[in-house]
């Protein structure tokens, strides 16, 4: 589909490259489990993330952004496309081969309550990945867990405690420590702060940014919250119904968005100033079903500028300005 994918403006080493990623879920019905349709959750997504870079992935709920994150980690098997981690195509590796590459990519989940095994102590939760990969043993494990606790702002004494004894923010720190245990290059954050109080959100975001600065981590930061994404990301990709509609650096996206969907999203962000006069434009209609995505450009049913061509031809993601990739016929 694409010859070039939206990559970082600055020349950096590419940590993750995703090419034309697709995930279609069959919908089965009835006694015989006949295939009744397909949910096009992710339908041709391409992007790349450089070393030490954060790519924010935003979109409404159900647009496929979480599926992208899970498919990259192969927690969900992709239907098509390829996933390249540090130059290695992992799309078709078998389980044994994949194990070694699992060390390079980890995930932080949205729900700090269900993402930690309630029957394991916090120390054991963080130690487990090291045990799985035999990175350390005995006292060495404990020492490294203690270091990780220190790193994410938890106290060593808390290693013996169980998840229910921690607050939501602390639990998310444990989740981050677990992800760091394997010294990954890339961490997928699947709405990692959405379940937290606003004051705690900032703490966890700042921790993630500190870790990125110190360890050179790359993040794929999935969120529906534009303010949070603006805070942490270097570049932002906007998704709509399984496709990326716009991908550019943070500043350009917030000041000069090119895709009509990005525009409408930005207009929906509340401004904490009653004197600011805003253009009154509210997106009409509902998100169409990903089982029956509209023909041509997926957004044409709600786009205020749609022309006939949009209904027929699906727009490719093009670099309309240096570093700004937009999938729209009109730009």
């Amino acid at each position, binding site marked *: 589909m694409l010859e070039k994918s939206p990559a970082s403006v600055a020349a950096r080493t590419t940590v993750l490259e995703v090419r034309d990623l697709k995930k279609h879920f069959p919908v089965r019905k009835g006694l015989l489990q006949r295939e009744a349709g397909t949910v096009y959750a992710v339908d041709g997504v391409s992007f790349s993330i450089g070393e030490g870079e954060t790519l924010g992935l935003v979109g409404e709920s159900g647009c496929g952004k979480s599926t992208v994150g*899970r498919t990259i*980690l192969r*927690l969900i098997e992709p239907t098509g496309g390829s996933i390249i981690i540090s130059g290695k195509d992992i799309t078709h590796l078998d389980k044994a081969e*994949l*194990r*070694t590459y*699992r*060390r390079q*990519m*980890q*995930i932080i*989940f*949205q*729900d700090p309550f*269900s*993402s*930690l*095994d*309630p*029957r394991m*102590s*916090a*120390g*054991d939760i963080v130690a*487990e*990945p090291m045990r*799985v*990969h035999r990175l350390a043993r005995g006292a060495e494990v*404990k020492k490294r*867990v203690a270091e990780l606790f220190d790193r994410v702002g938890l*106290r*060593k*004494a*808390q*290693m*013996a*405690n*169980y*998840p*229910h*004894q*921690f*607050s939501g*923010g*602390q639990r998310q720190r444990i*989740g981050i420590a*677990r992800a760091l*245990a*394997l010294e990954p290059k890339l961490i997928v954050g699947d709405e990692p702060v959405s379940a937290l109080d606003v004051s705690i959100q900032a703490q966890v975001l700042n921790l993630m940014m500190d870790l990125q600065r110190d360890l050179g981590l790359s993040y794929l930061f999935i969120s529906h919250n534009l303010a949070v994404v603006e805070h942490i990301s270097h570049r932002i990709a906007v998704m709509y119904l399984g496709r990326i509609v716009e991908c550019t650096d943070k500043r350009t996206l917030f000041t000069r968005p090119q895709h009509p969907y990005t525009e409408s999203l930005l207009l929906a962000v509340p401004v904490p100033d009653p004197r600011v006069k805003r253009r009154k434009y509210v997106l009409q209609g509902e998100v169409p079903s990903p089982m029956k995505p509209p023909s041509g450009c997926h957004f044409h049913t709600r786009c205020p500028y749609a022309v006939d061509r949009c209904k027929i031809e699906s727009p490719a993601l093009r670099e309309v300005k240096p570093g700004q990739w937009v999938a729209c016929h009109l730009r």
Partner: protein
Amino acid sequence: MAIVDLTSVPAEEPFRDESVWSRLRYYAASHPLGVVGALIMLVFVTVAVFADFLTVYDPTATNSAIALAPPGAAHWLGADYMGRDIYSRIVYGARISLAVGLGSTALGCVLGVVLGLASGYLGGWVDLVVQRVVDVLQAIPLLVLALVMAASLGPALGNTVVAIALPLVPYAARVIRSNTLALREQPFVEAARATGMSEFRIAVRHVLPNTLAPLIVIATAQLGAAILTEASLSFLGLGVPEPHPSWGRMLSESVAEYVRVAPWLVVFPGLAISLAVFGTNLFGDALRDILDPRLRN
């Protein structure tokens, strides 16, 4: 921020290093009823093991002179309609009743856990096959199934244990499966998968421990049922063969005829069963709480 006062935790407390004894003492202090249950079970097990030293009468010897003798100095708990010492029969009966109760419950739960875990975790055709087998097993009433099993295997202790364990399998398998289905989708299982942990290890390390609570409830509830099922089987001549005493048979063979004229024939074996079930229930409740970190404080 945390629920507990974290400052009370010793600064250098390591994880998983406490000695077994200090932990045991701590659990005993926080679950006095569990201690009572454990003691009751310990007494019964001791009685079963040292039955030879705790009795003077042969539990199978009959003596028509003392038939239906009431409890007294010579025969503490009286004698049954064949003149057998009830105390001796209860002491020796503990061997069979406990072996059958604990053995069949353990066997049934282990099989149920393996099937339920495999069925729920692997899904697909494994799930389909296992669940249909479980459906068939569950469609047959417990006693009927045990009867068929015992009749086809023949009356012997081992066969009785298997016969009673089998009907328990579908119950345990169902509960474990439904729990596994829910746990399988939990992010902490996904996180384990993301670290590259094998599916088998995830199932054993993360899924199984989280299904323990309902399993213990089932197991303790089934123990009493197993002892009584053995009684029914024995009554029909398909349990542990005569003349070996079991509590269940002592109860079932005398309840209809002698409960009015000689209630001690019914009361004492009944008490033994109730006490054993009571003990395991208390112990099981405490165990369930102790194994759950959320309830440990």
